């Protein structure tokens, strides 16, 4: 649940930043995506 939320938040941040501009959003989005992805990986392992 939380992992999915993190992934979703990361994706939204990346898309939002790509549309509106602003570099820091891409970095934060990538970090959220990475955190969510790794949590998912650990829970499935």
């Amino acid at each position: 649940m939380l992992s999915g939320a993190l992934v979703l938040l990361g994706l939204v941040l990346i898309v939002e930043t790509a549309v509106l501009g602003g570099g820091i959003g891409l970095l934060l989005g990538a970090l959220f995506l990475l955190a969510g992805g790794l949590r998912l990986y650990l829970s499935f392992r």
Partner: protein
Amino acid sequence: MAARRQRGVIRRRRGQGLERVLGTPALFATAYGNVGSSIYYALGVTALYALGLTPVVFVIAGLFFAATAATYAEGTVRFPEAGGSSSFARHAFNETVSFMAAWAQMLNYVATIAISAFFVPHYLSVFWEPLRDNPWDIVGGIAVVVLLVLINIVGIEESTRVNVLLAVVDFATQVLLVLLGFVLVFSPSILVDNVHFGVAPTWSQFFLAIPVAMLAYTGVETVSNLAEEARDPSRSVPNAYKLIAAAVFAIYFTLPMIALSAMPVRFVDGEYQTVLGEQPPEGFANDPVLGVVKNLGISSGGLLHALEIYVGVLAATILFIATNAGVIGASRITYAMSSYRQLPGTFRRLHRRFATPWLALTVFAGLAPIAAILPGQTNFLGTIYSFGATLSFTVAHAAIIALRARRPEEEALFRARPNFTWRGVDWPLFAVFGGIGTGLSWLVIVIQQPATRWAGIGWLLLGLAFYYVYRRRVVHQPLSVTTRAPALVLGPALQLEYRTIVVPVVRSNESEEALVAAARLAAERRATIAIVHVIQVPLERRLDQVAREEEDEADDLLEQARALVEAYGVRAMTRLVRARRAGPAIVEEAERRNAELLVMGAPRRPARRKTAIFGQTVDYVLKASPCRVLLAAGKRAA
């Protein structure tokens, strides 16, 4: 030919690495190096009081921090000089209030030096366990203070490039820890279970935790103190504060959540506690970030040990540099206070051999912090910092409100937001909110912490009594009047020392000659040159409405002037000023920098015309300058 050679010099200088002009990135990196270091001690002290509400407390303190950052941004753009709240208070109120703010800031510096130095051995305990606790942390902390005071008396300069690099590595490491925490331990349900409203923490603990959490924002005044050296404060200072606020929010709102997920609140021996706020050997109050690392649930022993060593060494280094920043800050504020005759001129005297303010360093950066370290009490150091910081911030907020109310018609280059216009005054809501928050926080500390109350109030009363006696008996001036100390006169020949020379520049032969004359003079006297260029903005435009090309041209001119001066081995600072008229702006700059000499190029008008010899600007400067003026009239005219 000469222009080509100059451009070559500039290119070579740029090729040597970091630009020496303080722009937004340099201001941000230096300030984050300072502010970002405080998480290494603030997390544990705050968790002791706030328990499960630690993340919420950091959010509340963060809102006050944001308001304070906005106040400092506006105040610093208005008065780009060292001093922060003390300087704002001087302009808004009077010298007595300014002294109080400066004296409270001095207490901050003493506490910052003490707490940063005290935590260096805690993080080095990854190599030797006894350093985590008394008495070895006291010994280690004192050794750090003594070493840094000696280094600063001898006058070894720290490398800005290394500091900036460390700030970046520090931020990246904190982001890495947050990321690892989100992956491995972050749990919203644990965070919710940690909270027992009114019980753990109790309401009094919760309210006390808010000012204590402000410890995490130690160093907010760094940008103000560096503003003197910033080329274009109206742009770089607000941008640097915005970046710091964003970076601090990103870390300080997330790391406490990770910490409380990794070290939850438990009911032990009849009370709620978290090992994050408990003393060693079981607790991590003395090294909270190492506590986070150890409790991240990393299963590989080798990886965990390597990460512990890395974080321990990095934290110790960052704290060492933060201690040094405190030492420099304490000596600077002492110098500023004695320049305004708030402290005796003895503190301004330089060491005969090393040319550093040795007495200021020994007393305020050495002896006072050592006295604060000796009891070995982290909580006392934390609350005494908060006592000074909240008082100093409250004065800063009040000063900005007063300045807005008293000078509503004054044109400002930068106004922080949000504001509310009422009865012709643009009231700064951020300062009102921040002032109420920091003022109440100061009251909470005074009411709840007896040791801090008496130590803090004792410090203030002692300072005030000294100020009263010094002003009445030695200076013979009323307490509330601003008085500048005369220029330092050194040596048996009573030779006047030029410490700061202001050189206004435009693109002309006379300006270049003025620069060369100033550089030669400064090279002989080891003075600093402040190169100023004024962009005159017509009345129909706002002061901040300057064409990009005009700014670029001004930047280029200042860069060339700096390269020319530095070719003589002289330290140069550049300043871009936007003003309605050049003359008053130049005079104001000379006043602000307490310059001893103003050197300017002066094109002479043809003798046949029955007009003034010099132009309007030179004429104004000659009439209104607070210091000596040297004119370079140009070879052809002479």
